[in-house]
């Protein structure tokens, strides 16, 4: 099974377990999308936009973690009136989740962290 197939299986299973998730994607830190469920980012333009935004959000968060807190970036949670954007850095790739309004944050963060750890093994 290819790494992409493994990642696809992982994301599909994750979305099935957490109904609050609208879309999931995996991107390289340079913004290149590796795989997306394509529920929201459903065409090439929106996929490119998602990758670029994720890269910029990750990069500036990582700088803030380093510069302001002398720490390592782990995750970012952007609350919007129509849902939430979650970014988790696995150490290799960025896991991106777009959710519905007022998601179950406890379940979501737990599931995303577990999946991020598995993605790290896949893309090691």
């Amino acid at each position, binding site marked *: 099974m290819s790494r992409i197939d493994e990642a696809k299986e992982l994301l599909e299973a994750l979305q099935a377990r957490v109904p609050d998730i609208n879309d999931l994607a995996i991107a390289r830190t*340079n*913004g290149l999308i590796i795989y997306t469920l394509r529920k929201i980012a459903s065409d090439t333009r929106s996929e490119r936009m998602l*990758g*670029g935004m994720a*890269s910029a959000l*990750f990069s*500036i968060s990582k700088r803030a973690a380093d510069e302001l807190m002398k720490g390592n970036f782990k995750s970012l949670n952007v609350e919007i009136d129509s849902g939430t954007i979650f970014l988790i850095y696995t150490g290799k790739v960025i896991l991106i989740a777009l959710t519905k309004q007022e998601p179950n944050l406890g379940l979501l963060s737990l599931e995303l962290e577990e999946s991020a750890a598995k993605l790290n093994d896949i893309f090691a």
Partner: protein
Amino acid sequence: MAINPSKRLAQLKFITTIFSMSLKEIKDIMGFETLTMIFRRVGEAAGENIVKRFQGKYTSIEEFANLLISEVIEPVLGEGNGTASVSGSLVSIDLAACPYKVAGIPIKDMSWFCEYTEGLFDSAIRGAFPGYKVETKSPEKIAQDCPTCKFEITYE
């Protein structure tokens, strides 16, 4: 009206300085990865333009790779500084010089420039041969003190 060459050079130096200072600020505030993302996307856009420029000029991936060398790489790096070979589903491109290093850019500290080249090759092959699954890797870079830049593009 022709511009005095020394005045033009001063203008270009000014623009280069502003560009360089802007990159430093982006890196300091927004981080290294932001620059890798931007340069990757600029490279992809350049690759898309190349596909349009080469339309009707190639019938195989070998011909396309050779066009990349003769019409894109060599005019910038000089004759003999780029080679391309195709073996099965792998296109290998080797560059014996770095245009940024030649221009005096500290490429080791500004290796986001490499993303431009990788994005260009990736998007050019992807655009020229739609329907193939394309993956581009750059296992060796002059920016990492390797003697050449190597790009490996697989298409299946």
